[in-house]
């Protein structure tokens, strides 16, 4: 029979792998996308879910404990801070006049 430990470890590893997949695709997008704005799309979005999935995996691994509560807070703040940081960089680039890439142009 499957023991509880095995199930907990399995779920944790599965969440880690899915999270790592999103982080990895974010890194690929960061390298492949053609300009500043589209690269921010890759890092700003994939990192949010990737990190949160990894944290949820850690919460499941640790069970109900003070550490889990702290990790839950961490994921909540990430959900607030990540879009704010992405927006701040986007705004700074737009205000200082970084030109967005259009289809058919060379990479920047």
């Amino acid at each position: 029979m499957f023991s509880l430990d095995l199930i907990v470890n399995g779920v944790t590893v599965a969440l880690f792998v899915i999270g790592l997949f999103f982080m990895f695709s974010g890194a690929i997008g960061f390298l492949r996308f053609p300009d500043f704005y589209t690269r921010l799309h890759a890092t700003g979005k994939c990192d949010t879910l990737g990190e949160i999935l990894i944290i949820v995996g850690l919460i499941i691994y640790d069970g109900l404990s003070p550490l889990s509560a702290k990790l839950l807070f961490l994921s909540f703040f990430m959900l607030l801070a990540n879009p704010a940081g992405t927006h701040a960089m986007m705004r700074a680039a737009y205000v200082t006049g970084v030109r967005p890439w259009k289809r058919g142009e060379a990479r920047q």
Partner: protein
Amino acid sequence: MTRMSEKNFSVLVTLVVLTIFWLLLSPLTVDIYKFFIGELHHEHIPHVLFLLGSAIISIAIVTVISHDLMIKKEEQMWLKFKRLLAYLPWELYQILLANLDVAYRAIHPKSFESGRSGGMFGVGPIDPEIIQFETTLRSDLSLVTMANSITLTPGTITILVDPPIGKFWVHAIAKAPADALLVDQSMQKKVAHVYLEEG
């Protein structure tokens, strides 16, 4: 609760939030629990009392300094809070979609410079544009919720916001996510529903 003044309300909320936060983060919470049920070893009692006292003093100081930065009392706050909780699951689902969307565009085999010729999925995966649109939202909270939601949902990031007319400048990575904001407008309607600001 109904007769409570605005200042008392924000002081109370700040006190409760800070106390819960301290209890969650402090390693002493277990010791304090033991102290109240009388199982704490008597040698540790002065130490725990000292730290508990300093916690109360620091919470009081922070409350006096910063209670006016916390949530202000608003019209129909309880209703807005309930609607915000109902909005969150949809938002989490959108975050998942956004990540699948970006991951798909990032690992798509077609190169981005080669223009518009075919490829496995017809049109290539990215076609960035900057769009503008006006909404019926006016309050700080609803504009922040909207701007954060735009950044978290598939293919769009907020660039600028103009609060007096509720106008947003948004960078969209392709035409489909831009149309979701310009034509479909389901997100504007949901956020306006949450904050009771439907035009």
